[in-house]
C-alpha cells in the first residue's frame, strides 16, 4: 500500500511534466490546426539557450530571463512566421511533416553546436526532500506539480475571465465568425504561439535538472505529451492536464505491476481503448464527424 502511494506521487510528478508540454500542444491545435511534432524538442531547446547564456558568463537568473525571451522569439514568433504562416493554408499534413523535419534539425543543431553529451542543469527549486503524509517527496517534483496547477488556473482564468481569453476562444472555435465580429484573429493566434513558447520554456527550466540537458531528451517527452493530449482530449486545456497526469501515473503503475519490458505499451493500449470508447478524449468535446 505504501508502495502504491509512492508510485502515485512519482507518477503525478512525471505526469505534471507531460501535462505542461501537452497543454501547449492542444493550444496550437485549437487555434491554428498545427500538430507540432517538434514539441518535445521545443522543451529541449530552452535549457540549452539558458546554458549558452550562462557559458557566456551571465548569472543563472539572467540566463533564465534571456532564455525565456529567446524562446518566445524563436519558438513562438519565429516558428509561427517562418514555418506555420506560409504553410497553414495548405492543410494540416504538410505542416505536420515540416515540424518533423524541424525536430530533426533542432536535435542536430544542438548536437553539432553544443554537445552530444548530457549536461547537468541547475535547479530553481532546492534539491531537498520534504515529508508529505509520511512520504518522501522531492521538492523538484512538488515544484513541477505546483507549476502545472498554476498554469491550469492561470490559463483557465485567462481564457474564461478576460476579454482576450474570450477572443482566443472565439478564434479557436470559428475563426471566420470571430473575424466577422471583430476579433483580431491573427493577433490571437500569435498569442497562443507565444503562450506555447512560454510554457515549453518553463517546462524546460523545471524538468532539465531532473532529465538533464541533452539533444535527444525531447523524443520521449514529445511522444508522451502527444499521447497525453489525445487521451485527455485534443481540444481542451484541462483535458491535456488530465491526460498528462493519467499517463504519468499509468506508466509508473504499469512498470510496477505489469512488466518493465512492456511498460511503454500500457499507455498506448490505454490510448487505443480511449479511441474506441471515447474518441473525443476523456474531457474533450466531440468534434463533428468529417464523414
Amino acid at each position, binding site marked *: 500500500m505504501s508502495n502504491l502511494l509512492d508510485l502515485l506521487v*512519482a507518477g503525478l510528478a512525471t505526469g505534471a511534466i507531460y501535462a505542461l508540454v501537452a497543454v501547449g500542444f492542444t493550444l496550437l491545435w485549437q487555434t491554428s490546426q498545427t500538430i507540432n511534432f517538434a514539441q518535445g524538442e521545443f522543451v529541449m531547446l530552452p535549457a540549452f539557450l539558458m546554458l549558452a547564456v550562462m557559458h557566456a558568463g551571465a548569472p543563472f537568473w539572467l540566463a533564465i530571463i534571456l532564455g525565456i525571451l529567446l524562446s518566445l522569439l524563436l519558438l513562438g514568433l519565429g516558428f509561427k512566421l517562418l514555418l506555420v504562416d506560409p504553410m497553414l493554408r495548405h492543410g494540416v499534413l504538410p505542416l505536420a511533416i515540416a515540424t518533423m523535419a524541424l525536430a530533426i534539425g533542432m536535435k542536430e543543431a544542438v548536437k553539432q553546436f553544443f554537445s552530444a553529451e548530457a549536461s547537468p542543469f541547475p535547479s530553481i527549486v532546492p534539491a531537498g526532500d520534504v515529508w508529505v503524509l509520511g512520504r518522501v517527496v*522531492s521538492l523538484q517534483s512538488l515544484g513541477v506539480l505546483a507549476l502545472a496547477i498554476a498554469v491550469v488556473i492561470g490559463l483557465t482564468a485567462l481564457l474564461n475571465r478576460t476579454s482576450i481569453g474570450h477572443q482566443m476562444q472565439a478564434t479557436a472555435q470559428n475563426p471566420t465568425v470571430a473575424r466577422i465580429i471583430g476579433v483580431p484573429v491573427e493577433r490571437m493566434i500569435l498569442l497562443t504561439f507565444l503562450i506555447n513558447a512560454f510554457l515549453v520554456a518553463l517546462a524546460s527550466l523545471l524538468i532539465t535538472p531532473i532529465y538533464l540537458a541533452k539533444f535527444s531528451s525531447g523524443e520521449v517527452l514529445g511522444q508522451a505529451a502527444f499521447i497525453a493530449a489525445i487521451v485527455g482530449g485534443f481540444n481542451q486545456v484541462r483535458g491535456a492536464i488530465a491526460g498528462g497526469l493519467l499517463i504519468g501515473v499509468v506508466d509508473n503503475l504499469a512498470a510496477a505491476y505489469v512488466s*518493465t519490458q512492456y511498460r511503454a505499451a500500457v499507455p498506448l493500449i490505454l490510448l487505443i481503448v480511449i479511441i474506441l470508447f471515447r474518441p473525443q478524449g476523456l474531457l474533450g468535446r466531440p468534434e463533428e464527424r468529417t464523414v
Partner: protein
Amino acid sequence: MRSGIFAGLLLATVSAATALAQGAPIKLADVAELSGGGATVGNNWKNGIDLAIEEINAKGGVLGRKLEVTHADSQSNPGVARAQVQKALDNEPYVLLGPGYSGSVKVTSPLAAEAGITQIMGGEAAELTQGGNKFLFRTSFGQQSSMPKVAKYINDELKAKSVAIVWVNNDFGKGGRDVISKEFAKYNIKVAADLSTEAGQADFAADVSKIKAAAPDAAFIYLNEEESARILKELKRQAVAVPLVGETTLVGQKVVELAGDAANGARGHVGLTTDAPVDLVKAFREKFVKKYNYVPDHNGLKGYLAIYMVKATTEKMGKVDAKKFADTLHGLTIKAASEPGILMDVTFDEKGDIDRQGFLVEIVEGKQVVKQVLPKLN
C-alpha cells in the same frame, strides 16, 4: 550518385599522385554512431580518434606517413552501418574503425573479414569475438571478461545471496545482464528482481520501489551514464540502503557530475576510465578536456586507443601492410613504456579480445577511489 563516384575517383587519383611524391597519408575509415540513439557513444569515439591522430601527425606520423581518417555516420542503425562500412571498404582503407553498437558490429564484421581489412571496434557484447572472425579486435573488455569479475566481487566481498539486476534494454544492457545472470547461477546467487529499463528513461520510481520490495543483498546496475545518474538519485530518495554494484557506466566521473552526492557508495569494476589512477590516463583526460571542453566517457578512450593500436602494430611490422595487420595484432603486447599512447599495458589474444589491468572502485565523497587493482592476467 555518379558525381559522387566521379569525385571519389578524382580524389583517389589525386591522392595516388601525392603517394608517389612521398609518404602518402595512411587512410583509415571510421563508421560510428554520430547521430541517433548512440550519438553520445559515437561522438566520444570520433573525438578520441581525432585527438590521437592529431597528436601522432604532429609528431611526424607513423613510419613517416601521416594518418588520415574519414568519419561516416551509421545513424545508430545497423542497416545504415552496413552501407557505410561497405562504402568505406570499397575505398580500401588500411584499417576500419568502429562501429560502437554491438548490433552494428555484428552486421558489418563479416564484410570487413571478407575484404581482409582489420576492424577495430567499440562493441562489448560477448559473442562478437566468439565467431572465429580473424579480423575483429576490441578496444575494451568484452562482457565475458568483465562480468565474471563483478560477480566474483559480489560473491566474495559482499557475500550477497540475492541480487536485483537493473539493465537497459538494448544490446549493451541485455548482453551484460545475460552474462552476469549465468555467473550468478554459478555462485548460487538468487536473482531477486530482474528489471529492464528503457534507454532515455527519466522516471525510475517504479523500478526502485521494486528493488525495495525485493529486498536483495545487493543491486547490480547496468545502465548508461545518464540513466545511472537518475536511478542513483531515485535510490537515494527512496532510501534504498543495499550495496550498489556496477560497471564503468555506474561509477564514472560523468555519473558523479550528474548525480551529485547520490553517487556516493556506488562501486564497480572499471576496465577503462578517465579516472584510472594512471598518470598517462590523467594526461589523456587533460588533453581531451582542453580540446573538446568536456570529460570523455570510456568511448572517448576507446577511440583514442584504437588509433594507438594502429600505430603500435604498424611500427611492429615496420611497414604499412593491411594484409598482415590482423596477424601482427593477434598475440601482440603493447607496453605503455614504449608506446605512451596506449596508456596501459595491453595484450591481444587470438580472438581479438584484450587483456589489461582493471580496477574495483567506489565513489567516496564524490571521488572515485580505487579499492583494488585487478592485475593484467599475463
